[in-house]
């Protein structure tokens, strides 16, 4: 039990239905990942690859049909392991054609009621989230301090208003907001983007969650502020040791803060392993998508030699029309004649290519 991962996601599927296209948007299509206690797991991928939807599925915050339709989310805290999607099968009927889900009927209301029951004790208290857009995620009509106090009283043992307020100030100080007692009474519009982000972090951490999900914590902030927020997260990580799932499309942020990395593409995990194996540009045994992603970052050599950036041709996978073969096939530049047929027809599985390092690519299988 000690060594069991804190969170284990098995074959999670979250779909939405597009009425105009009369088809499913397969936002998350079979995600497997696990987060060990005390570890920071980085999740990278282009927009639309299903990063945020995975996080929202874990928290049971998906609205819109059909939503989460299959999978297991095992969350182990307080000595027991609980499946957050326990009983989901009872609400969903899945029709498959050629091994692909083509029909889903789900009792969305029934499931939401059931999910809320399970999640009430977990959301906020056990799993907290830092949302993508801090300004939009804070209530504009309530002072930030009051919002943090409210979270503390709801999710921790502290119920006394005075005590909770003191606690909130302590956390505002902890995330390095200057003059926290004054900022306590500020409304979100009176704070800068960076400060709102700090307040969000304070709110998430104030409940001392077992798992923190940080969704794009630095996006939309200025470069100087970004580095400050990253510094803060690194510092909090070393002091508190909170298990974190860090979602970002900024590879530099992920490589600085994470222990392991998951690379997502088109709703699936294409590569998974320790950060040094995956995000070090020099190591070649990687999924072609990961290498292409790393190559498209402007680096020293592009500037020095005035060479063109290596863009990944084409666009992010349209998760409505998922191809039969590898999802990255259309944009891949490492298809060899030997594996072409496989790439085109069959989707590879996520298999171990080195100890602790898994990839979903035919290059590595025979």
């Amino acid at each position: 039990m000690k060594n069991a991962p804190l969170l284990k996601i098995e074959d999670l599927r979250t779909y939405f239905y597009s009425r105009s296209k009369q088809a499913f948007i397969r936002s998350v299509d079979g995600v497997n990942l696990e987060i060990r206690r005390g570890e920071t797991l980085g999740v990278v991928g282009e927009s639309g690859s299903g990063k945020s939807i995975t996080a929202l599925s874990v928290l049971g915050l998906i609205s819109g049909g059909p939503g989460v339709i299959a999978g297991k989310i095992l969350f182990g805290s307080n000595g027991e392991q609980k499946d957050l999607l326990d009983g989901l099968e009872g609400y969903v009927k899945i029709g498959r054609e050629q091994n692909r889900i083509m029909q889903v009927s789900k009792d969305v209301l029934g499931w939401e009621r059931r999910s809320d029951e399970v999640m009430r004790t977990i959301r906020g208290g056990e799993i907290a989230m830092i949302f993508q857009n801090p300004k939009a995620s804070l209530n504009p009509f309530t002072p930030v301090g009051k919002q943090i106090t409210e979270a503390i009283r709801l999710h921790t043992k502290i119920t006394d208003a005075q005590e909770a307020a003191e606690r909130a100030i302590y956390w505002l100080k902890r995330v390095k907001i200057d003059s926290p007692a004054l900022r306590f009474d500020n409304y979100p519009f009176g704070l800068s983007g960076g400060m709102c982000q700090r307040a969000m972090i304070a709110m998430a951490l104030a409940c001392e969650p077992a798992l923190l999900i940080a969704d794009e914590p630095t996006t939309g902030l200025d470069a100087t502020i970004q580095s400050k927020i990253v510094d803060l997260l690194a510092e909090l990580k070393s002091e508190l040791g909170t298990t974190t799932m860090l979602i970002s499309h900024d590879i530099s942020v992920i490589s600085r803060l994470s222990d392991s990395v998951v690379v997502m593409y088109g709703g699936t995990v294409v590569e998974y392993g320790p950060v040094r194996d995956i995000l070090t540009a020099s190591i070649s045994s990687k999924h072609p998508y990961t290498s292409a992603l790393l190559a498209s970052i402007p680096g020293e050599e592009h500037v020095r030699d005035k060479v063109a950036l290596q863009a990944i041709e084409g666009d992010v996978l349209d998760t409505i029309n998922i191809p039969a073969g590898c999802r990255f096939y259309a944009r891949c530049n490492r298809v060899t004649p030997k594996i072409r047929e496989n790439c085109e027809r069959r989707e590879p599985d996520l298999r171990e290519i080195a100890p602790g390092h898994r990839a979903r690519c035919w290059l590595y299988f025979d």
Partner: protein
Amino acid sequence: MPKTILEVIDLKKHFFHRKGLFSAFSGEERRIPAVDGVSFYLKENETVGLVGESGCGKTTIGRTVLRLAAPTSGRILFDDKDITTATTEQLRKLRGQMQMIFQDLDAALNPKMRIRDILREAITVHHKVSDEEVSRRIGELLEQVNLKKGKLSNFPHELSGGEKRRVGIARVLSVGPRLIVADEPTSALDVSIQAQVVNLLRDLQSQLGLSYLFISHDLRVVELISHKVAVMYLGKIVEMGLSGRIAHAPKHPYTHILWSSLVEKQSKESSSATRNTQSGIWGVFDFERPYSGCRFAPRCPVYESQGRPTVCTDPASEPQLRDIGDGHQVACHFPL
């Protein structure tokens, strides 16, 4: 020797903002000096990058240069002609030669128009052309920006971010401009798509001989695409020079901090050297905060380490851009 296509001399753009209902009578106004005396020039087939934090006046410069906003004072020369006071009629003609790529992808494209109509409108606004000519031109534009023909009958919301950006670029190209102000063309895009757009802009420059004023807060992209870079702080240019020099040998403490924050974000162990340079009073800047002398002094690590010299905060001696060789200019009393 390439010709100078755009020259800006001591450009100022101040915004006014009334305080309360009765200020119209009392004359009490708040002045926001978004651009406060900026001079630079842009040569043909060249790119000048403008960097700085959000709110420092980058976009305002771009808009004022194209006369989308009227300058408060200063002069703008386009092709050696003063366009500071050009009339609407004259401007309409000029817009055929200077265009802007807008920052917000979604706000820039009319959501109720199909891509074909968006491009057609741009073409027919400046030239009277036949329908066949329009379709031929649209085909050409699509090829230039590498967009599929099938997308023409789509609406903007059906396109991905990268595709919308391409439509924006195609629309700008449709009038055959020589100067393009590109306002954050790559923010809001993923790195892989960002690389496509950066490559596209560079290819277009070499094919069509365009000049860019490239506005971005992404230092790496700016360094990559620009020949010269101007770093802005609170409405002023604090450092300007060849992009390699700005990136690798910055002289102004602010530029140094901008770069080190980029590097620091990446490295696991932030070196103590960069940490020390950041130990100034690290608030966000604000036009309404009073300052005297150097605008950057309240946040400046050099000001701290020099023991707060009075010359930095003396209102009479605000640092001016001065040449320190090789066209590198810096506005600082104590350049690094």
